[in-house]
């Protein structure tokens, strides 16, 4: 098959699919129906027809400025996909977002996007139109049109009214609001050129065949779910099989059954999805499943754990799962999606490195007589040039040295919507030796023999006496030091004592349920953590807070929210089972009515 020019747009890709195989399923959505799953299929021809209707209606209905983006508020359905493509067909900038169907965090987030993006129109399903119109009015957005779409909502609009849009490669195809806080959302501007470049990068990295079958439960407004699992199959005339995250979490075995039923070749999930399968899919559920069709099972969007990869492969090897299929990758919305991924035909690399050297920002082979860390390679960079840069001096660093990951290339997005200062800082960085136009990712990593090892986030990094310590390393060391500690249930951060400007390390660790009652045992556990960290990391008298399971806050994708945990700790908002705090740390906490228990504070040991 001749190579397609990179300048083609998503619209071109879908139209090509319609011409070649109009009846092929572009999408299959698995709806929960009673206890089974009911497949809903959408052919290329029907996807195209509905997208043309959406585009024609958008053009008719929008009186205002067509450069204002279109906010898509849908539950997980194929109607989201037709509306998203409809925006491309209309030459409008789309914003995928979750349906704000419950008050709280989600509504606040979408309200923030509405304000930030200067949205011109909202698309949703008929049953939400009234509520969303009321919400728009209450938000003071009088001139925002709200349209409902769906199979029965054509209102007689003739799809043949549609004419292809004239778009330039530099036009913003969509805004990805995946980073930034709720109060200050940041919309990553992904241009048509960016999207084409990254789709091609994914295609060549994963060796995606024409007509691929991909399958996923990731949310459609999430970059990995949208770019990787929804648009990549469209890009190559393939089929995307989907279900909602809720369907998956209810019964993780459904994901594996989907792979079996549809002979899925490519899938993706953050690390926690693979963990859920290992923990919750019973032998009875996995019996008879054939996972041998799976060529690529991407693991990204949160730290990739070597033990999870091993456990998943071990558990499902009997079902035909190939070890090479499990594929660690690194990407971020600011680079459209993919930066690097392991080769799908060879096993991923793991690197045991010397822990002390890593603290000094160097990858050195582990020694048997010293503590070590296992890093998982995220493969080789694809269309993107990766620079490792000292975040303070902005000097480029050689192979094997840890620094901030900087990126250059055609997938690097155009910036943050309406934020020129932040865009200049983040997307237009210049190294000390004058390499310009770089994206600062805020992630730390190193290159070694061309492979990228991601080691942490800058903001969460602990700096102790000039050494860089990675919270996840300390968390893991604590969790491996005793049965009572819950795996993945820890948050390590530092708090700074303003007077001396000294940073103090705080370990918040969940205990397993059986270990939470005996006060004496708790005191011993806390002391053992201090001793361990003193021995292994040369950290004297860290503060240790032991808590019940479930106290550590995580994002919906399973990332530990260390910054939030630090705030909760400093506000005195943690339900503490037992703690041993350094006096300087006690001084940072809000004064309580009761005097601190004598056991609560211990003096630093020499």
């Amino acid at each position, binding site marked *: 098959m001749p190579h397609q020019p990179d300048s083609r747009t998503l619209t071109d890709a879908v139209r090509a699919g319609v011409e070649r195989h109009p009846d092929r399923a572009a999408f299959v959505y698995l709806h929960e129906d009673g*206890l089974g*799953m009911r497949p809903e299929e959408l052919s290329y021809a029907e996807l195209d027809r509905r997208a043309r209707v959406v585009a024609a209606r958008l053009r008719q209905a929008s009186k205002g400025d067509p450069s204002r983006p279109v906010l898509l508020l849908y539950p997980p359905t194929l109607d989201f996909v037709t509306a998203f493509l409809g925006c491309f067909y209309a030459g409008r900038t789309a914003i995928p977002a979750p349906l704000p169907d419950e008050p709280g965090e989600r509504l606040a987030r979408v309200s923030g996007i509405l304000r930030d993006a200067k949205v011109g129109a909202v698309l949703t399903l008929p049953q939400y139109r009234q509520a969303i119109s009321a919400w728009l009015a209450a938000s003071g957005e009088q001139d925002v049109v709200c349209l409902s779409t769906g199979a029965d909502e054509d209102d007689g609009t003739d799809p043949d009214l549609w004419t292809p849009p004239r778009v330039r490669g530099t036009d913003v195809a969509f805004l990805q609001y995946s980073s930034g806080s709720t109060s200050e959302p940041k919309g990553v501007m992904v241009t048509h050129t960016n999207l084409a470049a990254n789709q091609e990068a994914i295609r060549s990295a994963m060796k995606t065949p024409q007509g691929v079958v991909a399958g996923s439960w990731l949310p459609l407004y999430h970059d990995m779910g949208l770019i990787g699992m929804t648009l990549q199959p469209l890009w190559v005339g393939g089929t995307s099989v989907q279900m909602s995250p809720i369907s998956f979490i209810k019964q993780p075995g459904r994901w594996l059954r989907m792979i079996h039923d549809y002979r899925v070749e490519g899938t993706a999930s953050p690390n926690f999805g693979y963990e859920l399968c290992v923990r919750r899919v019973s032998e009875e559920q996995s019996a008879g499943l054939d996972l041998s069709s799976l060529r690529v099972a991407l693991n990204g969007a949160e730290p990739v754990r070597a033990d999870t990869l091993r456990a998943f492969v071990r558990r499902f090897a009997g079902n035909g799962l190939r070890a090479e299929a499990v594929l660690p990758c690194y990407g971020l919305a600011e680079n459209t999606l993919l930066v690097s991924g392991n080769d799908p035909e060879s096993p991923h690399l793991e690197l045991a490195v010397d822990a002390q050297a890593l603290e000094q920002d160097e990858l050195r082979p582990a020694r048997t007589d010293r503590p070590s860390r296992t890093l998982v390679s995220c493969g080789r960079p694809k269309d993107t040039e990766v620079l490792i840069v000292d975040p303070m001096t902005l000097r480029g660093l050689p192979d094997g040295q840890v620094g901030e990951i900087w990126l250059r290339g055609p997938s690097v997005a155009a910036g943050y919507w309406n934020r020129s200062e932040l865009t200049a800082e983040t997307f237009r960085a210049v190294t000390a030796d004058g390499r310009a136009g770089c994206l600062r990712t805020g992630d730390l990593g190193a290159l070694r023999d061309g492979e990228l090892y991601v080691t942490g986030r800058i903001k969460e990094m602990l700096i102790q006496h000039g050494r860089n310590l990675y919270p996840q390393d300390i968390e893991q060391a604590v969790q491996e030091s005793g049965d009572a500690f819950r795996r993945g249930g820890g948050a390590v951060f530092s708090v700074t004592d303003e007077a001396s400007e000294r940073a103090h390390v705080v370990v918040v660790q969940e205990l397993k349920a059986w270990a939470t009652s005996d006060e004496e045992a708790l005191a011993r556990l806390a002391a053992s953590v201090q001793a361990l960290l003193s021995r292994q990391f040369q950290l004297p008298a860290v503060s240790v807070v032991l808590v019940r399971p*479930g106290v550590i806050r995580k994002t919906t994708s399973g990332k530990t929210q260390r910054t939030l945990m630090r705030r909760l700790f400093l506000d005195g908002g943690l339900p503490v089972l037992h703690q041993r705090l350094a006096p300087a740390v006690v001084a940072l906490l809000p004064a309580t009515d009761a005097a601190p228990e004598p056991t609560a504070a211990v003096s630093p040991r020499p």
Partner: protein
Amino acid sequence: MSIAPDTRTATPQPLDRPLPQGNAPDLELWLTERVAFHLHRACDEIDPDTPLADYGIDSVAAISICGEIEQHYRLAVAPTIAYDFPTVHAITGHLAELLADKAKHDEEPS
């Protein structure tokens, strides 16, 4: 052309075991065990009248519990069940009602 129509297996699971009975003590015992599993606790730590929120339930655990109920009792319940009925007792009461309705419905001649 439809995708892989021949390889698709029938989705509903076969009825390979008798449907569990919906009497309250059994229900509570079973639910307590599953709640404990998803909250990473021991069964005897789960007090039936303590809100699950006090045990630090997150959205993954809440949806998981919903999924277990659906699978075990072949009963569709809202994903928010652990929030709508915040304790083991409250969920048990709700389930007992649903199961009684279902039994009545199943007995009616079609």
